[in-house]
């Protein structure tokens, strides 16, 4: 039996309303915090003020609406813990996104460039870069994103390679954390954690289970959970009502579509 003639544009409007109405009239739904988000939070809590972490923005602008809140929550936590942050990116668009986010949060929290944070910029060949960081950060990045000699930045005094980096966090919308685990984690033993888009969660849960990843936060829900742990309200928390409503809309469409399909099959 053919489905009732429902123009696809009507479905688009339905979905848009499912997203927009909860944004306009928020309810304030709050879920519980998952085990993996708590683990990530504890991981950052366990680091000492002054410890250096490397954050790699391995994502594209397309997924920033989902990944951005995860990155923001993690960096906020790191800055509150007075961790020193070195940023880089192995995907071109992540370079600008990461720089923008880090500089904005650094300004808000009074962090000074070169001492509390530094941004190394883009490297096109991630395998070579991940392995190169294990040999010498300065050799791999002679200049930072702003084209200053990396050697001149105080943050790198005493930080030569992964040996002095306490944690690598890959903010990713694709497989990059896998390569971090394979090359940086496997060869140099540096702990790797990941902030992921939700679609990659099932890909990386095996790595968390085998302890090749030491932390994992995923999707807008993960960002909302992290914000809850930090006691802040951000894009993750704000999005939960709309996320819930849109999910329910999709589920209703699946159920209705299948109900009509089976009714048609029984009749014929």
């Amino acid at each position, binding site marked *: 039996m053919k489905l009732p003639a429902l123009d696809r544009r009507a479905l688009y409007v339905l979905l848009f309303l499912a997203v*927009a109405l909860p944004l306009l009239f928020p309810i304030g739904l709050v879920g519980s915090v998952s085990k993996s988000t708590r683990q990530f939070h504890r991981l950052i809590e366990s680091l000492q003020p002054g410890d250096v972490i490397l954050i790699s923005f391995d994502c594209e602008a397309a997924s*920033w609406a989902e990944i951005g809140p995860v990155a923001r929550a993690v960096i906020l936590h790191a800055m509150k813990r007075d961790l020193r942050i070195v940023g880089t990116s192995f995907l071109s668009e992540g370079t*600008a996104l990461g720089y923008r986010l880090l500089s904005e949060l650094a300004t808000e929290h009074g962090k000074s460039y070169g001492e509390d944070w530094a941004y190394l910029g*883009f490297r096109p060949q991630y395998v070579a870069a991940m*392995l190169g960081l294990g040999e010498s950060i300065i050799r791999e990045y002679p200049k930072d994103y702003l084209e200053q000699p990396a050697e001149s930045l105080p943050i790198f005094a005493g930080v030569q390679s992964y040996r002095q980096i306490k944690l690598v966090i890959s903010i990713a919308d694709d497989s990059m954390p896998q390569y971090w685990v394979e090359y940086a984690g496997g060869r140099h033993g540096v702990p790797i954690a990941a902030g992921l888009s*939700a*679609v990659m969660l*099932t890909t990386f849960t095996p790595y968390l289970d085998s302890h090749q990843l030491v932390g994992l936060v995923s999707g807008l829900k993960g960002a909302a959970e992290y914000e809850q742990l930090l006691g802040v309200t951000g894009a993750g928390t704000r999005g939960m009502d709309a996320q819930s409503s849109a999910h329910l809309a*999709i589920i209703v469409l699946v159920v209705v579509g299948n109900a009509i399909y089976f009714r048609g099959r029984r009749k014929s």
Partner: protein
Amino acid sequence: MSEPAIWISALCTLAIYSFLYRDNPVYRAAEQILVGLSVGYLVVITVRSTLIPRVWTPATDGNPWAFVAAALVLLMWTRLHPKAGWLSRLPLALVVGAGAGLSIPALLKARVTSQMAAVLTPTPDFNTFVGALGVITTLAYFHFTRPRTGVFDGVARVGTWYLMIFFGATFGFTIMSRISLLLGRSEFLLGTWLGILP
């Protein structure tokens, strides 16, 4: 974001969304602008982050290894020439060979031995059994050179179910991800641009 910037972003967003009604010149124009900007962005970032600090600057400082790097760059660019294009295979061979050599120990450790070790735990429980069964039956499913008969067929079928659970979970998360992307744009249009969100 300044007011003009917000309006420009909003109009670009609506231009792309016009595709939902139907394909139209406004959407196509926005699409081409996006593609041009993306390529320009990539070129700038690549030149400034890699070619200048690792080839140009050391070469102008007289570092002999920089000239080797410059030669490799020029060899890559011979690809644009129909007769000399085969020379680009030389730097490609370097990257391909090096990549293959570096990947073997990395993959064996990260994807094979570590994952195999994680199948069993010191204190096995029900979940360990379910997990081990899943790994074995999934590997059996992908063993296509053996005919699917008897016990092997049953084992591979169980592997299919595990794969359906994996794909189902991935599918659910994919929908979640896509909706998050729409959420982001909706928040921008309704909040940042129109200013009607609470």
